[in-house]
């Protein structure tokens, strides 16, 4: 059953939907297309967001004349 339903949206259509529609519209369309009511409340783990923010805080980019940009990550 699900296999038949999922065929109504290609990856490219989904991509365009995610890029061009506002968030509310995007979620209402994917709920409709996939019946995925739970997906709106799905978000990345807090630890992942922390990792990203810590990476950003620890990252220093040195712009050098001869070797280009040098990335240094400090703890």
């Amino acid at each position, binding site marked *: 059953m699900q296999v038949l339903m999922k065929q109504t949206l290609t990856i490219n259509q989904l991509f365009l939907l995610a*890029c061009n529609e506002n968030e509310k519209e995007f979620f209402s369309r994917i709920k409709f297309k996939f019946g995925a009511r739970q997906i709106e409340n799905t*978000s990345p783990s807090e630890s*992942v967001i922390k990792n990203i923010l810590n990476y950003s805080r620890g990252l220093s980019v040195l712009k050098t004349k001869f070797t280009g940009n040098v990335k240094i990550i400090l703890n």
Partner: protein
Amino acid sequence: MKAHAESDKDLINRYISGDQICLEKIIYRHKNRVFAYILLLVKDKQLADDIFQDTFIKVINTIRNGSYQEEGKFIQWVMRIAHNLIIDHFRKSKRIPVFDNSNDDFDIFDTIKFTDASIEDKMITDQIHQDVRKLIEFLPPEQKEVLFMRHYSDMSFKDIAEQTDVSINTALGRMRYALINLRKLIEEKNVILTT
């Protein structure tokens, strides 16, 4: 459209100037949409977390390197990075299959998925499609009509509403009941619809 106090452009400019809070704001603003897109394609929460993390690591590297060109299309750019990482993941996993041997009854032929469906897979899929069609015949005519128009003719609900001379809400309602009734029929008749 939801109005944001600060535009993505402003937040990025402030982040470039060293305001780390702006990165947090921008991640929280777009995280659900980006994550939902990744999850819909990879269908694995942990993997989606990894790809989400890699996406924003790339975003940070590009911005901090000074390579990001602000054209008012921040979310489109982030989605493109996420999309490319998903494609990379599928390419790698196809090239390097991973086998789960945690089970004692492990049999390699249970886990290998060949690119092309085997004759057996095709037969099973055809059988599933036939079973679904038979079940649809048990539905009331108006529900059957909407279901066929939507899933077999790929018509929009707007077109279905026009064709059947009802409102879009009625068409949606009929579709909803068609699916509820189909699920009931699957349970009642004990039909297995998996490969």
